[in-house]
């Protein structure tokens, strides 16, 4: 056998004879009883051409949609610029390892520092780590941080939290004895502050606010909520769609303790579930910074006083006190963080704002068209990118009708409701076709 990924196959005998041993010597420590008998039952070796055929065959089994799906729920279809793809395909980046040797890894360290710096500006928060897995797990780690800080075991979350984030949160924190308490929404879809006040107490570890919330609706009472929390020494966690920050105030303005969010919206493909990019930031406060999980790149000087970058605050990680680490995270989403940095650098101050505005306009246009058809918005609050519509017919039926036209509608919420996501990839023509097919039913 000859294989392009296994250089020494044909030299094995020569190497073994140079070493003066036979192959069995190398495995003499593996008891025969447990050794694998026979070959692994895997497919036969394939050439590149055959692999590509196989992949194309699989792709053909997926439905080719006429437009990107009108579906969000935490991640949304967006246009990823060629320069972003090109730069994260530079193999010095994508085949690198965690930059534990800073002298030879200044480029990737600087790129990650730039991600942290750009994200810090976007959030208006001073300390950003260089990535968590995704929004859901980032939220879970934030809640665990809160627990480590104040030792309390109750956490308030909004009823209109992204349900997938809630599932992740429960998996991570409930085994630690942490309980989740939900606050109700008002009629407009925002958090009901009265309900919140009823639930707040000295036993609350942290409060989580999602902005905009799962239904795309802008929360209004964040200042008041943060105020309430601070009085009780409750850790405040704010989840954000970073793209919405092109138009609305960032978490730093509210002086929250921790911000989390999903970087997918900033230059990543949908990836059928991942890789995504968990954003996490904290205020300039030693207690928070020292409890923050994940890697942080910092700027320092080298032995000739030249500026240089290196991983910092590593005592938080598993190096020293392994079981006391802030988190077990090692492999993160570093390359995706670089993609975020490139994406935001490309859009720049002006492009980022324009994009936010365009998405706002298109999603509002789509919502308006649905209402003209006789459907209604589920909540009245102003929204960004996503909005929930209540139809007069079964959404299942609408969905299937759309699929007949090779259009994928929104996310089914229940019998008659669906959550639509409209971004810059959905042209007016696409929106019009979506609405007109729905109108035909």
């Amino acid at each position, binding site marked *: 056998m000859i294989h392009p990924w296994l*250089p020494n196959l044909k030299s094995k005998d020569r190497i073994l004879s140079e070493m003066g041993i036979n192959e069995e010597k190398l495995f003499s420590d593996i008891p025969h009883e447990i050794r694998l008998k026979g070959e692994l039952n895997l497919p036969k070796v394939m050439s590149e051409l055959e692999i590509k055929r196989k992949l194309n065959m699989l792709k053909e089994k997926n439905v080719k949609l006429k437009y990107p799906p009108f579906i969000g729920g935490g991640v949304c279809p967006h246009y990823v610029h060629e320069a972003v793809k090109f730069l994260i395909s530079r193999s010095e980046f994508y085949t690198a390892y965690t930059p534990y040797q800073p002298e030879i890894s200044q480029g990737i360290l600087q790129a990650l520092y730039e991600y942290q710096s750009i994200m810090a500006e976007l959030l208006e928060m001073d300390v950003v780590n260089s990535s968590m897995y995704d929004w859901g797990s980032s939220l879970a780690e934030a809640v665990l941080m809160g627990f480590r800080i104040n030792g309390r075991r109750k956490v308030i979350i909004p009823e209109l939290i992204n349900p997938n984030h809630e599932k992740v949160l429960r998996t991570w924190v409930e085994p630690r004895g942490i309980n989740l308490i939900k606050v109700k929404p008002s009629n407009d879809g925002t958090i009901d502050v009265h309900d919140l006040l009823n639930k707040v107490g000295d036993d609350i570890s942290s409060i989580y606010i999602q902005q905009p919330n799962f239904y795309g609706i802008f929360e209004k009472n964040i200042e008041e909520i943060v105020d309430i929390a601070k009085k009780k020494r409750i850790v405040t966690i704010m989840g954000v769609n970073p793209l919405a920050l092109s138009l609305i105030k960032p978490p730093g303005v509210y002086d929250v303790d921790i911000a989390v969010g999903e970087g997918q919206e900033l230059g990543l*493909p949908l990836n059928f579930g991942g890789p995504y990019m968990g954003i996490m930031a904290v205020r300039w406060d030693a207690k928070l910074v020292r409890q923050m999980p994940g890697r942080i790149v910092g700027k320092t000087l080298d032995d000739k006083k030249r500026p240089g970058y290196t991983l910092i605050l590593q005592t938080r990680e598993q190096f020293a006190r392994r079981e006391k680490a802030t988190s077990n995270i090692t492999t993160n989403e570093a390359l995706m963080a670089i993609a975020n940095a490139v994406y935001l650098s490309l859009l720049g101050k002006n492009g980022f704002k324009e994009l936010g505005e365009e998405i706002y306009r298109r999603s509002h246009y789509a919502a308006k068209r649905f209402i003209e058809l006789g459907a209604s918005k589920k909540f009245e609050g102003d929204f960004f990118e996503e909005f929930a519509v209540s139809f007069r017919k079964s959404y299942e039926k609408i969905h299937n009708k759309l699929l007949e036209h090779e259009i994928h509608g929104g996310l089914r919420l229940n019998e008659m409701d669906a959550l639509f996501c409209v971004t810059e990839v959905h042209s007016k023509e696409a929106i019009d076709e979506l609405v007109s097919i729905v109108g035909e039913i």
Partner: protein
Amino acid sequence: WDEPIIFELNTSGTERQGVLIPKEEELSQIDINLPDYLRRNEVNLPELTENEVVRHFVRLSQMSYGVDVGMMPLGSCTMKYNPKIEEASQVITEEYHPLQDEKTVQGTLEMMYEIQEWLKEVTGMDACSLQVPAGSAGELAGVLMIKKYHNETGNVKDEMLVADTAHGTNPASASMAGFKVIYIRSNKEGLVDTELLKATAGERTAGFMLTNPNTLGLFEENIADIAKVIHEHNGILYYDGANLNGILGIVRPGDMGFDVVHLNLHKTFGVPHGGGGPGAGAICAKGKMVDYLPYPLIEKSKTFYASIPKKSIGKLTSFHGNIGNVARAYVYILGLGKEGVSQIGKMSTLATNYLIYALKDTKLELMSPERPRKHEVVFSAKRIADETGVTAFDIAKALLDDGFYAPTIYFPPIVEEALMIEPTETESIETIRSFANSLKRILDEAYRNPEKLRDSPYNTAVGRLDQARANHPASVTPSYRIERKRRESKNDLILK
């Protein structure tokens, strides 16, 4: 390059941008009337053309080092060559939304189903979930499964045994799940001390976290006994897949008696590491543990669909897991096939032992030198440090000057002045030889000119960095925002 930070590439106010935003002119009359309490006026982002952004990051990339540039002998990290065809896999993941109707993504689900089946075969387990995005999330999933299993069966078990030669994150994962961590020390051969294990294991033992071969690269030959001890106490034997590469195709965790196994697809199946991530993981289980796997599992009836195991611990990430990378691993396995995958353990073990052979006449020391290593080897540079003052750290830095990446150092903690090296099966024997020669040259130099090594590296973009300054509350600088504030304010910005 002496490349400035992107915020300082040009002066702001140039009103540049690197891309055009598509606009529907007919919609431009839609007003954006956000109330003052919500509206943001400006985001402080760079103003650059596409050219400026591309050039900046191309230059940064040239100041980085990946497997495509040279050998990365990092122990336990399994830095293999990443075949370029892997990227072709993105056609079945990139544009698909994880919440899409399953009938529109049957091809992608089929891929997930197939790789689940292959991973079962490779590990000897009964079911695998692709939910976990990385190794440590896999560990966490594993310990959460163990916890839930004991909770549901009414066992009161709060202690997790962890071998001191286990993978680095095992203790953190166990404590994240609320377990008390009990270390099981190695015996002088570098293997689990089975007597000590027998003495330690008891009714509060929830499980034992082990990796085999262990982080010294040694195969735990008493694994059957170990499994017996743990199972007798109704404990769960957990396998950390970080080190699977040394035995792939030779022996399977399932056949050794493990109940729960996590895999790092980015290690064992050649997914690129991306400068620290993204990775991809899988968590597999046998027998009674299958019901506790995180969801979804992809199953097949007439069509492929996602299912939730009966007693599932839940979800570790928001959607299906890092499926883009799972697809890369899928292509890796297709490309090697059963013939190739069956050779991985043999060839990676050969590479490690050849390196040991090439270094046999040096002053690097080895625990149990008579035992063969598997995927990796841990040398101790203690003697050299004692005799010359040149530490494992200095040796690592000197390797950078020779165009190699450095091994993992000071890990595992049970070896003093540890140099942990994993060549992998994708490095040619010539490269391994040349790496060994570099190491020998450096060791010689340690005795001839130790001062010089203590200031290495010389050929890199920067020299040794001031870690004290990097971490001191008065100078720690985690973002340009802090740099800017420090410059603008008269007061020092101390992190307190």
